[in-house]
């Protein structure tokens, strides 16, 4: 008791802690442990691209925890790394918890040395301690803490182990006065120059809270953001001149530019540290790990791409074979609910609102909960297993030839879940051109919200080939994304393909709990949308279907009919020039699920169900053309807003909308008219 109150007296009431570390080291897993949040975790580098804040309360200390994107150094190549770096350099965090992957110490400690050199107050979490133990890597924690002069705590974030000890170490360290900044010896060729530059930097206002030695090192490395800060100083000219002299000297005597020399030296230091603190038993068999054996097959030149498409196909088969029948039950339930509500509610208008509007509109969307949950389940399996990064690897050979970047494939795959996080995931692309291209083509990936449209029509017209037909739509999305990517590259974003360098995480067996949590989180978000956005839109549609007063409900004369009818001629050459289809597409802009919701309102779910109405008013060909249109035309408003935010340009946002509309129209036209030529109409 006494001890704890003493500690409390020394430590501030509120401390701010940043979680920094290499990509995929377990930062978000730890963040979730600390704050009870459910931020997205996945087994590939670059899951988190934004900083996220949460709180952890420990006795009487409030710990503000900030989860950051992963980064290999403070050099920041990509937008997500810049987020991490800017936060760490901002001086805002009192303390940095450095999440280190203990099963891959050497590379992870590189960032550690950088954090310590810049004078951050660091506590090290040796995460993935379980994997390190499995690899028989023994780490002498005390020796490591002694050499580095900071607390070192072993943790297993996925099993919430070591969290409490980590917080204790953090709270303890936050109260401490920072000692002398940690330094690395860069050798006799570089040290005198660094010292000179350090002296010259004394008193420069813009770098006041950073150690001058570290600034000198960063200047020599040519770090742009540090350069920028120094350039604001009135003495910039003199400092930069000295910097260039020192850099030239280092290059002359070592034959290396300062940056390479410093990286060598840092790894040299880390090598020494590891020799003193780590013992490992390793045999040839261990080194050819299970991961490598799997990669032999999965990333094989001949097998890689077939395996990718096969696994995608398996995902859709799984979703529909299991999801179809389940949807049937949900549909039957809403049909029954509608009948009961209709019978119970005396007031005709209210009954129509409930039955035609809410149950018809929202219910027809909720029918698709089973396949949507299943597809999220399957996506989570892909994400947690480590296959995502392999898919990017496999596709790179192909993409590279087309002038596109293999890493683009990760955002594209994320897009199967929802386009919004996918567009954000483009931040991990280092090169602006690659990033812009990927942002523009990501909306062609068929997100889960488009699934209801397919399932509805496929169930009616293509029941025998469900999986195959839906797979064809997903495939069409990918193919068009690549084709458009190539065109954009050729005409809008010319330039060399930037080098492909990407870490591959080890394969991990997804835990049932992890996968179920992912499925639930995303599926629940879908249900919430049904209860909020879709609910509201559906009510608007119902109102429009009832006005002007006295009109036949959902008739051609209603406002809804008028709006749809006004646009409908545009779609006539595509095979669905009805006002119902036009209205569905218009309102589908707000959220693509609403396409189905609109049909639910205008066709009614009645006795025979929505399927019967679809059967009457559509043909297989017009249905397929409509699905193609739904796939391609304008991403929903949420995606548009994200494109605006991420590109920071109305022009490109407008372009994304315009090209997808045009492309959707053209593709649907080709499908419908082509189909008619072959006598399918």
């Amino acid at each position, binding site marked *: 008791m006494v001890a704890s109150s003493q500690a409390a007296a020394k430590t501030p009431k509120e401390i701010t802690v940043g979680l920094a570390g290499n990509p995929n080291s377990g930062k978000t897993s730890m963040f979730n442990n600390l704050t009870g949040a459910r931020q997205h975790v996945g087994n590939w580098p670059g899951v988190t691209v934004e900083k996220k804040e949460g709180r952890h309360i420990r006795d009487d200390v409030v710990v503000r925890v900030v989860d950051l994107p992963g980064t290999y150094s403070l050099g920041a190549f990509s937008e997500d790394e810049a987020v991490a770096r800017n936060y760490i350099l901002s001086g805002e965090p009192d303390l940095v918890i450095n999440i280190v992957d203990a099963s*891959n110490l050497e590379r992870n400690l590189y960032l550690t040395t950088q954090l310590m050199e810049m004078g951050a107050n660091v506590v090290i979490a040796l995460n993935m301690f379980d994997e390190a133990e499995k690899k028989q890597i023994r780490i002498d924690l005390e020796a490591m803490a002694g050499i580095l002069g900071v607390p070192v705590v072993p943790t297993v974030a996925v099993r919430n182990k070591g969290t409490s000890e980590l917080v204790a170490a953090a709270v303890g360290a936050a109260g401490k006065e920072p000692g002398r900044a940690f330094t690395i010896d860069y050798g006799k060729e570089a040290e005198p120059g660094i010292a000179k530059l350090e002296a010259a930097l004394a008193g420069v206002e813009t770098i006041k809270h950073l150690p001058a030695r570290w600034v000198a090192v960063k200047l020599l490395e040519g770090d742009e953001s540090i350069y920028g800060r120094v350039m604001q100083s009135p003495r910039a000219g003199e400092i930069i001149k000295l910097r260039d002299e020192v850099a030239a000297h280092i290059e002359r005597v070592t034959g290396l530019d300062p*940056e*390479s020399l410093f*990286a060598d030296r840092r790894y040299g230091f880390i090598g020494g540290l590891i020799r003193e603190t780590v013992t490992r038993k390793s045999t040839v068999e261990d080194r*050819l790990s299970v991961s490598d054996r799997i990669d032999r097959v999965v990333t094989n030149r001949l097998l890689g791409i077939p395996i990718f498409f096969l696994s995608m196909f398996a995902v859709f088969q799984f979703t529909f074979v299991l999801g179809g029948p389940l949807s049937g039950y949900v549909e039957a339930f809403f049909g029954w609910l509608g009948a009961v509500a209709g019978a119970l509610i005396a007031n005709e208008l209210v009954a129509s609102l409930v039955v035609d509007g809410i149950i018809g509109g929202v219910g027809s969307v909720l029918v698709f909960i089973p396949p949507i949950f299943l597809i999220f389940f399957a996506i989570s399996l892909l994400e947690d297993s480590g296959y995502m990064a392999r898919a990017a690897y496999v596709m790179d050979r192909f993409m590279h030839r087309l002038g596109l970047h293999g890493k683009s494939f990760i955002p594209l795959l994320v897009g199967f879940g929802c386009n919004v996080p996918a567009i954000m995931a483009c931040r991990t692309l280092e090169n602006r051109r690659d990033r812009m291209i990927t942002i523009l083509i990501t909306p062609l990936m068929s997100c889960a919200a488009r699934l209801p449209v397919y399932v509805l029509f496929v169930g009616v017209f293509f029941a025998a080939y469900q999986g195959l037909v839906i797979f064809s739509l997903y495939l069409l999305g990918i193919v068009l994304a690549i084709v458009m990517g190539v065109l954009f590259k050729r005409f809008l974003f010319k330039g060399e393909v930037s080098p492909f360098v990407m870490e591959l995480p080890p394969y991990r067996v997804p835990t049932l709990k992890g996968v179920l949590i992912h499925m639930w989180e995303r599926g629940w978000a879908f249900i919430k949308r049904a209860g909020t956005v879709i609910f509201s839109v559906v009510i608007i549609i119902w109102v429009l279907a009832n006005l002007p007063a006295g009109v036949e409900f959902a008739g051609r004369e209603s406002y809804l009919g008028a709006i749809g009818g006004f646009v409908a001629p545009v779609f006539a050459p595509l095979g669905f020039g009805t006002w119902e289809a036009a209205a569905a597409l218009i309102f589908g802009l707000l959220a693509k699920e609403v396409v189905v919701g609109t049909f639910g309102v205008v066709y009614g779910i009645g006795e025979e169900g929505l399927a019967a109405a679809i059967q009457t008013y559509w043909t297989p060909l017009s249905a397929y053309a409509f699905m193609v249109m739904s796939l391609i035309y304008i991403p929903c408003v949420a995606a548009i807003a994200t494109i605006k935010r991420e590109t920071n340009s109305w022009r490109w946002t407008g372009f994304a909308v315009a090209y997808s509309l045009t492309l959707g129209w053209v593709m649907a036209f080709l499908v419908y008219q082509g189909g008619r030529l072959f006598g399918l109409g």
Partner: protein
Amino acid sequence: MLSSVLPLGFLAPGREAVVREVSGGKELRRRLGELGFVRGSVVRVVQSQSCGPLIISLGDGRVALGRGAAQKIMVEELDGRELDGRSPVK
């Protein structure tokens, strides 16, 4: 026995080598440096095909490298056993 220095992209699958030099543009060198491709680090080719990217084992991690990037890393082959358990090639 002296072995020669060659670009990483030419190293056969299963072979180990020591990095001697990393060239290429500033950004690429920095990226490779922070991942641990520095002089003296030991690398092994896990996957390499006639064209397209490679998978390199570096320390305890695996890194996918485009062909272009791999050509910028000069390595010296370590002679010795095949590490991949494939039938030894003579």
